[in-house]
């Protein structure tokens, strides 16, 4: 009886080990820094990856932890990650760590999908090899309640506003309704820092780091401080602008498209979506490009390749757009039955990217774990000048010292729209 139990136990154990190994060779571990909130992650697992033939382990990671984890795996010699999905700026430190497998064959096979050449070039990080395949893109747009449209200044084209016109518009709304109905996501989890890094600074100064304390920047902050008088003061609590838009607390809002989609989807007849305004130097905008890469020494590189192929299919890209608000990079005809809210968002992004005066500003690259400090710099400047009313010149000079220290310590070279630099980006 004892011997029988022992035999049975070891048979079960052996079967378990064997099947575990078999299962691992089938599973693709897909690590992603995007689509982290639980609802979006569940959509990835249950909807987007539903038709993929192999088992996928979808694991999310905080963006700042991604290089730490990859470095740890490289040093420890234990590789668990197959496919990596992350933003362009998050994949770049991995490229410098030589942690990505070249994907030239895969890129060749995917040529007929129609991914724009400039996006594929971004995926090379300046080398000859394709290090990531563009996965999906998004950007930041503005959304307005149709009730606000009558207050637009005469002659203003909503798809080509300037910041002055936006201020006039919000001022007219405040005067006629008595309420401040312009909103920005300046809450603790809001993406206000991206507004400064990718929209305001490029539009007024043509750069981000280099002209940080220039006279154009000083004028910009003074104008923004006066624009803030028309902004709903609860903006310092707004994280996702779709909520105040739906509640009617805000009529005109700026935010990441994924944080506005709920409003556009639930009430597409009430809202219009349009590109962010332009300043003296153009219409700055921040394209958000996510890419798919394969980790070097991935246990299941074939599975990862198949996964990337699957995610780049037009059908999957449309399903992705429908579910999580990130838009396709491949050539797709958006189906006619796409919900109207999504169409509004896609239209605004398209107008942003094809604007004649568009100034693309990339997400900060090369700051690695210190990206949070970079963002804090802009939010501190905003707090001091706009919320606490201090003089822009003094604040800019003070914060420029912190920025100089950050750039020299991280050694990050300049990124678009600043002109390329050799060595760390210098603040003028």
């Amino acid at each position, binding site marked *: 009886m004892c011997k029988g139990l022992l035999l049975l136990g070891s048979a079960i154990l052996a079967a378990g080990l064997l099947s575990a190994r078999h299962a691992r060779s089938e599973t693709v571990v897909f690590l992603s820094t995007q689509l982290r909130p639980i609802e979006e992650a569940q959509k990835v697992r249950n909807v987007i990856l539903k038709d993929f033939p192999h088992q996928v382990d979808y694991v999310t990671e905080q963006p700042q932890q991604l290089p730490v984890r990859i470095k740890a795996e490289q040093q420890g010699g234990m590789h668990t990650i197959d496919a990596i999905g992350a933003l362009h700026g998050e994949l770049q430190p991995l490229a410098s760590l030589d942690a990505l497998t070249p994907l030239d064959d895969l890129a060749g096979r995917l040529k007929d999908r129609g991914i724009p050449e400039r996006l594929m070039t971004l995926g090379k990080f300046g080398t000859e090899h394709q290090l990531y395949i563009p996965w999906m893109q998004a950007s930041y747009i503005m959304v307005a309640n149709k009730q606000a449209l009558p207050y637009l200044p005469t002659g203003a084209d909503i798809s080509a506003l300037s910041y002055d016109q936006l201020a006039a518009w919000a001022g007219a709304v405040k005067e006629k309704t008595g309420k401040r109905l312009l909103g920005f996501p300046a809450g603790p989890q809001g993406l206000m820092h991206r507004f400064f890094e990718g929209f305001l600074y490029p539009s007024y100064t043509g750069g981000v780091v280099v002209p940080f304390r220039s006279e154009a920047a000083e004028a910009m902050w003074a104008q923004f401080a006066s624009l803030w008088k028309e902004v709903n003061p609860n903006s*310092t609590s707004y994280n996702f602008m779709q909520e105040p838009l739906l509640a009617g607390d805000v009529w005109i809002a700026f935010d990441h498209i994924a944080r506005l989609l709920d409003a556009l989807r639930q009430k597409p007849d009430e809202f219009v979506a349009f590109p962010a305004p332009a300043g003296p130097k153009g219409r700055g905008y921040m394209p958000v490009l996510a890419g798919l890469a394969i980790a070097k020494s991935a246990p299941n590189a074939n599975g990862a390749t198949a996964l990337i192929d699957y995610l780049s299919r037009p059908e999957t890209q449309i399903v992705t757009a429908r579910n999580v608000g990130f838009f396709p990079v491949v050539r797709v005809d958006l189906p006619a039955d796409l919900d109207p809210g999504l169409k509004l968002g896609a239209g605004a992004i398209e107008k942003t990217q094809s604007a004649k005066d568009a100034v693309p500003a990339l997400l900060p690259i090369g700051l690695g774990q210190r990206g*949070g400090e970079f963002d804090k710099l802009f939010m501190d400047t905003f707090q001091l000048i706009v919320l606490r009313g201090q003089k822009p010149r003094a604040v800019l000079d003070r914060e420029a010292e912190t920025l100089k220290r950050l750039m020299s310590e991280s050694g990050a070279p300049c990124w678009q729209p600043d002109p390329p630099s050799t060595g760390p980006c210098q603040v003028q």
Partner: protein
Amino acid sequence: MNARYIPYLLIAPSLGFLTLLFFVPLVQTIALAFQANGGWSTENFARMTGDINFTDAVVDTFEIVVIVVPLQLLLALAMAMMLQHLRGGRDIVLWIWSIPLGISDLAAGLVWLAILTDKGYLNTLLVDLGVLNGPQSWLSYETPLSLFAAIVVAELWRATAIVLVILVAGVQLLPKEYGEAAEVFGATPWQRFSRITLPLLKPSIQTALILRTVLAFEMFAIVLSIGGRNFPVLVSEAFNWQYSQQDYGVAAAYAVIVMGVSLTATLVYLRILRTPAAQR
């Protein structure tokens, strides 16, 4: 085995547990606060004090503690005395007063946010009563006083029960003879309370104050949910440095400050509210 060592042996497992899971991380955090760029330095503290929110965080934290803790002590004393005089229903009243203890402070913060937000219950009530014409913003950075008052009220609602429960336990243990004797000698209720009950309650008050003050310095979730960015406190700044800026050194520096302040407050209470051994 010598019987003398048995008590120490029995305590040893829990001491080991405490050391491993409490003291070791404590020492590591203090070390983290004093390390920067791979060596020992006070750079984290320099960065912390140079931050634009540091002064506000310190002032706000102390403001809250200095206002909330005495108010709660007075409230809890009054409530404990009232409980003493209840005939029936005493348990129910005590239970109702302790309900806020059972919910997390984040939940308490969200409750008050729902009441005080622009479209919340308070504004709806005031507009319906005709007191206001339209919604009034109570929690924005433009109304710092009402924001502060909102946080004080939410903290009073949530945490007075902590002080109350300790004081009720203390009051129940007081011998009734002194009060009865004083009544026979013609003492007024106020004299009985201030000359007899209060001094006898000093150990309980000391315990309650230490506990409540230490917890007040660590207050975080209520302030974050009601005030967001508009009301920085020490722990919320530590949280931001840790998670948004990924700067563990400065977050550890904030933690060391909170610990230092709490320890100082505890020592002050132990000294001021000391009961000589003879009276215990």
